[in-house]
């Protein structure tokens, strides 16, 4: 009986799960395995990939120029994450709790800007911050500065851009976590005479930790790869690992080296996700 039932389920199960399995195998698993294999290959004079085992790409990755960019990437990603968290936590608290009656519309207003193409928004920043831009005009008219200030084409501008583009990915999980906090507990803590600081440290922080973790992961990891942000606002002075990979797959044409650099990104990602899971993070709350 049980066996029969199982057999009768096999058909529909195959119809439902078959397509996704095939799709993921062909478009995710096989390409990634191929990239891994390619990272151990070399190239010939015409930049074609030749399948002979070499560790050369990985050795080249320790070139000092590259190592500097990894450091810079991590620095940029770190500061962008910190900015998003520091700005985003009180903000999420305010829209989820203090102004609770209007929370849907307040929340939607975080999402709406992101339906305008992110490149054009970054270009908006560039227009605003440029030496002829509005901000410099304002500073000049107010006599705060006598010369236009170069805000663009450095690490700070790139960090600003990353934080800007990824801000909702921080707010999303924080908002969900803060919304779930028990109001009675917060009030009880205050009624018992606890300072806001200790309520925050002992009640809010532990209960929203998973939101903080997933927000940080969702900001930090993309920062390493978003080459267009450093292209537009960093002007070549604030490259991230993504820029290195992009160059190898476009003009440089050393695909195996680009593949090896991608493997580095994958390894960093896996380590962070493992750490996240160790800290009790829920995979489901990443991404959605």
């Amino acid at each position, binding site marked *: 009986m049980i066996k029969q039932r199982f057999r009768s389920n096999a058909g529909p199960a195959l119809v439902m799960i078959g397509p996704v399995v095939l799709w993921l195998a062909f*478009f995710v698993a096989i390409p990634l395995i*191929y990239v891994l294999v390619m990272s151990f290959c070399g190239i010939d004079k015409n930049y074609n990939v030749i399948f002979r085992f070499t560790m050369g790409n990985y050795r080249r990755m320790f070139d000092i120029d590259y190592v500097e960019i990894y450091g810079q990437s991590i620095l940029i990603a770190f500061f962008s994450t910190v900015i998003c968290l520091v700005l985003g936590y009180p903000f999420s608290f305010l829209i989820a709790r203090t102004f609770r009656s209007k929370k849907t519309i307040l929340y939607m207003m975080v999402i709406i800007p992101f339906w305008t193409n992110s490149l054009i928004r970054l*270009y908006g920043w560039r*227009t605003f911050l440029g030496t*002829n831009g509005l901000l410099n005009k304002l500073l000049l008219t107010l006599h705060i500065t006598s010369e236009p200030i170069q805000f663009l084409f450095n690490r700070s501008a790139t960090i600003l851009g990353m934080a*800007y583009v990824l801000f909702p990915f921080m707010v999303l999980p924080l908002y969900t976590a803060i919304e779930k906090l028990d109001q009675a507990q917060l009030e009880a803590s205050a009624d018992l005479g606890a300072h806001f600081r200790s309520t925050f440290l002992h009640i809010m922080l532990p209960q929203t930790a998973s939101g903080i973790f997933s927000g940080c992961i969702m900001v930090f990891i993309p920062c390493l790869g978003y080459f*267009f942000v450093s292209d537009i606002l960093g002007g070549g002075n604030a490259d991230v690992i993504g820029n290195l990979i992009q160059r190898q797959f476009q003009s440089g044409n050393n695909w195996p080296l680009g593949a090896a650099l*991608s493997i580095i990104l994958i390894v960093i990602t896996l380590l962070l996700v493992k750490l996240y899971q160790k800290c009790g993070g829920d995979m489901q709350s*990443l991404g959605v």
Partner: protein
Amino acid sequence: MCRQTKEKCAHNAGAVYCGLIYAFLFLPIVVIVINSFNATNTKPYLTWKGFTLDWYGKLFQNSALLDSFQNTIFIAVTSTLLSTFIGTLAAVGMYKYKFRGKNIIDGLLYIPVVIPEIVLGISLLTLFTNTNIPRGLLSLVLAHTTFCIPFVIFNIRARLDGYDKSIEEAFMDLGANRLTTFLRITLPVLAPGIGGGALLAFTLSIDDVIVSYFTNGLTMTFPLKVMESIKSGVSPDVNALSTLILLATMVIVILTQSNLLKNLRKVLKRQS
């Protein structure tokens, strides 16, 4: 200071803080909208030279830009449909049936969500070059569907958490076959999850830069066109198109958020 005034102060300070954050979020958009009405034609379009609607007129003569926008919409619609179809089947299937290798599928689903998009982009590029799949609309649809599927599945899964299987069983005990049960019971219950997933897929596809950058071949999408034009200074008709897109999405949001749509649905239901 008594407690009430203190609370009021804190409340106001909070409002100011939120205002500043929204200013930060909307500032570049305001710049874009203003520049789309700016009469200047000297690059890089930084000073205000008076109001004009010329760029909106010019926009409809810029066939390359309009083509790229059309491509973007085509890719977004097609990959949304594909990923929603595959994702809905998979989400329901994985919920209903137990089978070996479920963890592996789960693991594979998380990959496009957590790895940096650039890795997905280059891996798909190598796939398309090695399998001779022509790079263009087809490869873009395939690529976008790939990163949309997991988001669709996760969205539906969130909805399935509170789903009662016994309704389905009851329906089948009453003599309905599998397909009817799926269409009449499962789908309606999951509809909000499916709708949310589809909306997310559409949003992701329409704004995608990185994966498209590696898989487009010679076909241009709107974001790629913007990227190309940024090097020479974005022309105001791009600003005009962005303003129109923003306007359209705002209208959609207001319609879906307001009661208008709900009331409309009620009226339709009553009629049927």
